[in-house]
């Protein structure tokens, strides 16, 4: 097949007055991100933008030839926030490869561990990662008029979260000194305790195995989990109205803010939380157990659901080279020609990937990053779509979290 892997160059913009603005490194993210832009302030437009990741590690190279049972211990180390997700996926893959079905209780413990991980991932936005973007210090520095307005604006839900004015929320978000920042830190520790109950350690679990878990399922284990869970639920009853107040205020105070992150609605999800009553880890039944997942798989293109079929979602994943420092594997070895159902597997599918790094100078007109470009091939239109796997453009306030997660998931493996 043919694939567009060449670099798309921007049209020269002689007539425009472009100001170069770069941020390298972008902090409060995992994945060594740098953003390089040229901004047309007269027309209020970002004319050019390049994002780079400046680290290469080589997982797909050094895992070759190793015992497949070691896979989840190794892939966990890809990410220091959500290592567990990589470990869980690697265990799912091993279950399928070895033809093993974990006992139901093992599956539930994995699900409870994952659930705690998602709570942690959500919560980390409020302290370490994103909350700081909306804190007093930041708003004062970048938008003094917005700060002045926040001081005069009462929080509509102050009865639920306790912060009288919007400015009080912002002060509470100040790193380390803010009361909400510190409360979120404490709560993030509790989600990690929940995680450690089920999977031993955070961020790299110790009790996950293909075929189940080593966790000892006692009454105490589940008691210790649920008392923490209910504390987190209570905390969320405060957090949700607090977010509503804060972001509604920004929409009001900064007209156009709702446009932040607006783009084509392209979403992808391969499901989460298997139902042990249905999931037998066979490829043949993958669509059936995929639909039985508690978070169902699916691809959404331009706001419409295109497929919920796990086989379809999987087979159309493509790894393109984009502007990354690797040699092409178009003519390299084909490891898998057909899936177990006889469907053809593309040469650019990750199953056929051969990673060959070629370190070189950074060139924004050529190659400039260690990150490849994972895409989903829409066979109806022939497009290679960059699916959002962490949220959606409609939730503009969530734009920062979503893009930050991308840094995590696309970091150069």
């Amino acid at each position, binding site marked *: 097949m043919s694939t567009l892997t060449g670099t798309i160059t921007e049209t020269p913009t002689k007539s425009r007055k472009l100001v170069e603005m*770069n*941020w*390298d*490194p*972008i*902090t*409060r*993210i*995992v994945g*060594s991100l*740098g953003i390089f832009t040229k901004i047309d302030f007269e027309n209020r437009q970002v004319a050019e933008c390049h994002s780079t990741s*400046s*680290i*290469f590690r*080589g997982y797909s*190279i*050094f895992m070759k*030839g*190793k015992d497949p049972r*070691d896979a989840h*211990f*190794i892939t966990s*180390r*890809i*990410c*220091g*926030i959500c*290592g567990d997700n990589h470990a869980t996926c690697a265990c799912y893959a091993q279950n399928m490869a070895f033809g093993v079905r974990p006992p139901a*209780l*093992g599956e539930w413990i994995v699900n409870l561990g994952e659930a705690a991980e998602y709570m942690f991932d959500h919560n*980390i936005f409020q*302290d*370490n990662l994103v909350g700081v973007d909306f*804190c007093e210090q*930041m708003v004062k520095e970048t938008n003094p008029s917005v700060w002045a307005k926040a001081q005069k604006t009462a929080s509509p839900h102050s009865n639920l979260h306790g912060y009288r004015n919007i400015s009080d929320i912002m002060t509470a978000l100040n*790193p*380390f*000194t803010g009361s909400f920042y510190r409360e979120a*830190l404490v709560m*993030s*520790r509790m989600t990690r305790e929940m995680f*450690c109950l089920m*999977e*031993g*350690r*955070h*961020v*790299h679990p*110790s*009790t996950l195995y293909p*075929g*189940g*878990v*080593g*966790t*000892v399922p006692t009454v105490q284990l589940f008691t210790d989990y649920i008392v923490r869970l209910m504390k987190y639920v209570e905390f969320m009853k405060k957090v949700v109205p607090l977010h509503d107040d804060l972001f509604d205020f920004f929409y009001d105070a900064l007209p156009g803010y709702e446009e932040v992150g607006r783009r084509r609605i392209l979403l992808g999800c391969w499901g989460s939380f298997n139902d042990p009553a249905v999931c037998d880890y066979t490829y043949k039944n993958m669509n059936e157990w995929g639909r039985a997942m508690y978070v169902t798989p699916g691809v959404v293109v331009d706001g419409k659901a295109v497929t919920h079929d796990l086989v379809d979602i999987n087979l159309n994943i493509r790894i393109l080279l984009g502007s990354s*420092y690797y040699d092409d594997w178009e003519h390299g070895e084909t490891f898998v020609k057909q899936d177990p159902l006889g469907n053809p597997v593309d040469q650019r599918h990750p199953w056929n990937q051969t990673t060959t790094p*070629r370190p*070189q100078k*950074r060139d924004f007109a050529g190659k400039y990053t260690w990150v490849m470009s994972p895409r989903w091939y829409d066979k109806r239109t022939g497009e290679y779509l960059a699916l959002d796997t962490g949220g959606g453009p409609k939730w503009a306030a969530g734009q920062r979290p979503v893009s930050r997660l991308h840094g995590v998931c696309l970091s150069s493996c």
Partner: protein
Amino acid sequence: MPTETKPYGQKTQRPSPVPEVHIVWITAGLGCDGDSVSITAATQPSIEDVILGAIPGLPKVYLHNPVLAYENGEDFLKAFYLAEEGKLDPFVLVMEGSIPNEKIKDDGYWAAMGTDSHTGQPIKTTEWIDRLAPKATAVVAIGTCATYGGIHAMQGNPTGCMGLADYLGWDWRSKAGLPVVNVPGCPVQPDNFMETVLYLLYQLAGLAPMIPLDDELRPTWLFGRTVHEGCDRAGYYEQGDFTTEYGSPKCIVKLGCWGPVVNCNVPKRGWMAGIGGCPNVGGICIGCTMPGFPDKFMPFMDEPPGAKMSTTAVGMYGRALTSLRSFTKASLNKEPKWRHPRAELTTGYHPRTY
């Protein structure tokens, strides 16, 4: 900070002779930032305890860590440039992630942070180490990647990466005479690292002697004992009671646990707040704190070769011990015979008044 909000410790104790210390933290090694994330789970002490000065006698601490920073881009790097110029003194350099070998290729970079304003090219992580290490009062390697190379330095890796002491030299000393301080773990156990930082801050304040380190440059009080010595399943080992099933509370050496020969305190200390861990909660010890990690422990899920012999040897002794203990246990599970509802006192006391 206004006086009334100052934590108790800071306002009641004598001030530190070193008023301020900066912690300059590079996460741009080959790693996952998991150590930075891990330390936010610490409570003994917590990161906010250290930054807000809740612990007496400490200098005021300024943290420059990319995962936790308020600033972005050049604003964030300002502290790094000042440190390089010797204008951020004293500072502790923390290195996270393994150090790639940039000498094995002609062009480009394996790992970098920030952009060189003259060349427009990324500034290599090794270049940052070269610039900052000579100026640092102390240098700490956090996590197994930075200490010994770790996962990314596995056999067959393309980057030739290594630990910080491999890069700087094992006999390297900071300008204050300190060797590299290694706090391994994949990721680092949260309290282990924060406690090491606390110790170094005390040392800088003149309140603690030279940090005690072993040959692998680990703090001795944290890594002096093995996983097994602190494991609550070690009793099963002694009794020769080994499980071959996952999910059992018994000793998991036969499932691939390396606990008896790994220097680590996690089963004793738990992962956080005493919760979690590895073999104590059913996870085989894969030796993630060790210089030989991961290759010398792979395949992780096979029984360690040495364990075959030792478990056979301990098996006979353990079975005999268990059967003797079962008699004693049966006796101890019965109450003494004088506890009864009959109308007589048989405790050995002879009453004269009733």
